């Protein structure tokens, strides 16, 4: 049983992402916005297993999260795929402290990328004279999400990275 859990820990955490996405704990939010949860899983996963795995699981995450959100016209897949590939090219850092800050910065950048791509989709879908109304709330959403993702990433990513490394070594 223990062996099973050690091997499948990554997958168990993967399953948790949509649950947290749906749960939407308001007490962790800022201006009603949540951190972008999938990046916390995707970063350590891609760093250990590489760009191709990052791309595939970015796609999987996007598919799951798209199915949970109503906006059928917009998708999170492109952002997550790009992040998966990008995160896979990042090397692990030996200095723990620098590593923590790096996770924060990388996740913030990823969140900005995903948020911006989503915003552009909304913008192009609603191509009309009312587009200017969308700008301020959208910037607010993106900035709040970037801030929160960057804030939580050092804590969550470093823990997950350690767990994933441990389970990877066990599997090997």
């Amino acid at each position, binding site marked *: 049983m223990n062996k099973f859990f050690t091997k499948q820990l990554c997958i168990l955490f993967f399953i948790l992402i949509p649950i947290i996405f749906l749960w939407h704990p308001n007490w962790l939010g800022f201006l*009603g916005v949540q951190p972008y949860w999938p990046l916390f899983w995707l970063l350590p996963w891609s760093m250990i297993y590489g760009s191709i795995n990052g791309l595939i699981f970015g796609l999987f995450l996007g598919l799951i999260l798209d199915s949970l959100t*109503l906006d059928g016209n917009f998708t999170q897949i492109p952002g997550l795929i790009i992040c998966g590939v990008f995160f896979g090219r990042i090397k692990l850092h030996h200095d723990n402290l620098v590593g923590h800050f790096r996770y924060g910065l990388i996740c913030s950048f990823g969140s900005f990328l995903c948020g911006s791509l989503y915003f552009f989709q909304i913008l192009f879908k609603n191509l009309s004279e*009312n587009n200017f109304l*969308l700008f301020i*709330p959208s910037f*607010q959403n993106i900035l709040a999400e970037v801030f929160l993702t960057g804030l939580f990433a050092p804590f969550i990513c470093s823990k997950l990275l350690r767990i994933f490394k441990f389970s990877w070594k066990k599997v090997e």
Partner: protein
Amino acid sequence: MQGIRRISSSRWWHKKKNWIFFGIFLFLVFVRISKGSIYKDFYYFISKPFWPGSFQKDLILKSIDQESLIKLNLLKKDNKRLREILSLQELSNDDYISAAVISRKTGSWWRQLILNKGSKDGVEIGSTVIGPGGLLGRVNNTSLFTSSVILLTSPESKVGVWLDRIQINGLLVGLGDEYPSLILYSKYADIKVGDFVSSSPASTLLPPNIPIGIVQSVEEPMKSKKIAKISLLAKPQVIDWVQILKVKIK
């Protein structure tokens, strides 16, 4: 050595009385800084039993309640009669489905509620969802046991609304923040802060006259349009129970 000890024991800070005075002084400084709020609050509690007119206030409130109830019943009757004359639809209690909110995303891009009633309970895509205060949104997706509601604040949401005071239709557009925008396609519409917004009688998506919100601010007219921010009456971030209207709009 003994001499030094005797001298030090007679210092002012070794006297209890001085410390008491110092404590009182600090307390008074605090009272001064807090502008007497302690006194006022204390007075509030001790004078509460002697306040004038608490009995009278209860009587007045009861009378107002009764008056409102009678007026409401009269209006209901009127409404029913007029609807019969105009051959409009009626809503009965059987047309409502009560549902609990099991997931709530009220921030960021995705603004939706997930309810614990689905197609098994007769919820259909397009049904209107109302909560305490008024309209929340429309059912956009159903599964066997759950249904997803797209909120009025979502960037996907666009509904027709009615401003009763100036008798004009408008379009309520969600922007991904707490205050959707109302677009009136008339530069000269006399919209004012505080105007009441309800669902439009001309809407093909919603039943008429469901309260939606109040005009919070009006922006400068642009080209042939006027835009206003609307403060919604129903607050999806705190509502735990909602009602789904089963009725179909013709």
